């Protein structure tokens, strides 16, 4: 990282194979087990342990079961508020999506560098968030067409549109529908990447001012360090909010598919 004494803030996002090599290709795509894959597996495993530990179905829940039930209740309430009674069947999907992204975001913020490991935030890659958003978008399209058949296209023409305006409104609504998977994936990826770049840049201020002189460290390094602690707290908030926004927008889009508008 500290090649020629300079910290490269983008280095933390590099993907390298841990098991296998760059030449493991199937149809032009590399299938080596990378650090990105490893952290996805860790997130999935932790999520499995978290849910399995709470799935005791006791009448009076213990602490762990209470924690899991808080999350399921939260997702359940979100779907009830945004989709209505039809939304009940999406609870497993939205719950997995929300918890997976939440675990991924928080895992990437773990200060594992202290013990020499490097936490990797796979949600800071558009290839990961893009696939999640395409998954949500395909569910919306499939549900919409299965439930409403070709009547689903009335989504693009809201009720009470004057006949003169229909061509223009149709185009606008179609574009706004088509950019959804991009905006959904882009938001999560850019928010996570920007936060991690900011932390790395601030930490490089601390390191290089500390290497230069004690006076410079007092002027530039110490304030940067204090700011960094604050930004860390902000990043924890952002990690939660972005997972929530991803799940919430998926609910809103599912509402369009279930109930049209």
């Amino acid at each position, binding site marked *: 990282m500290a090649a020629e004494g300079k910290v490269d803030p983008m280095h933390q996002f590099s993907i390298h194979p841990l098991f296998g090599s760059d030449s493991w290709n199937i149809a032009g795509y590399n299938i080596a087990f990378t650090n990105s894959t490893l952290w996805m597996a860790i997130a999935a495993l932790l999520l499995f342990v978290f849910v399995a530990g709470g799935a005791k179905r006791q009448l009076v829940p213990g602490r762990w079961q209470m924690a899991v039930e808080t999350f399921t209740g939260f997702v359940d309430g*979100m779907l009830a*508020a945004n989709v209505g009674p039809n939304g009940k069947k999406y609870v497993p999907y939205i719950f997995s999506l929300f918890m997976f992204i939440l675990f991924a975001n928080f895992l990437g913020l773990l200060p594992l560098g202290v013990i020499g490991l490097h936490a990797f935030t796979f949600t800071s890659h558009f290839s990961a968030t893009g696939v999640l958003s395409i998954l949500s978008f395909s569910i919306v399209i499939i549900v919409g067409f299965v439930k409403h058949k070709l009547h689903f296209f009335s989504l693009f023409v809201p009720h009470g549109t004057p006949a003169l305006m229909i061509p223009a409104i149709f185009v606008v609504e179609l574009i706004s529908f088509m950019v959804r998977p991009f905006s959904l994936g*882009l938001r999560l990826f*850019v*928010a996570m990447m*920007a936060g991690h770049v900011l932390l790395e840049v601030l930490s490089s201020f601390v390191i290089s001012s500390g290497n230069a002189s004690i006076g410079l460290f007092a002027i530039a390094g110490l304030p940067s360090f204090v700011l960094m602690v604050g930004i860390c707290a902000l990043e924890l908030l952002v990690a939660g909010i972005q997972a*929530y926004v991803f799940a919430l927008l998926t609910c*809103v889009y599912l509402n369009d598919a279930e109930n049209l508008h």
Partner: protein
Amino acid sequence: MDAEAAKLLGAGFAAIGAGLASIGVGNVFAKFLEGALRNPGAADAQQGRLFIGFAGAELLGLLSFVIAALLIFA
């Protein structure tokens, strides 16, 4: 001005977009609080809409970051 300098200037100007989006995000939460303090009973039910508005305002700021990143790295 050569192309590289123009690219970096453009990336710097894109930061204006991020700053404007911060006004937007501030507006979303300010107006929500204003309304919530007037009618606290209705506030909790509107939290979903609050975050939809937040997500919309934030996305437009993040787009300016994407443009800056594209100008510098692509």
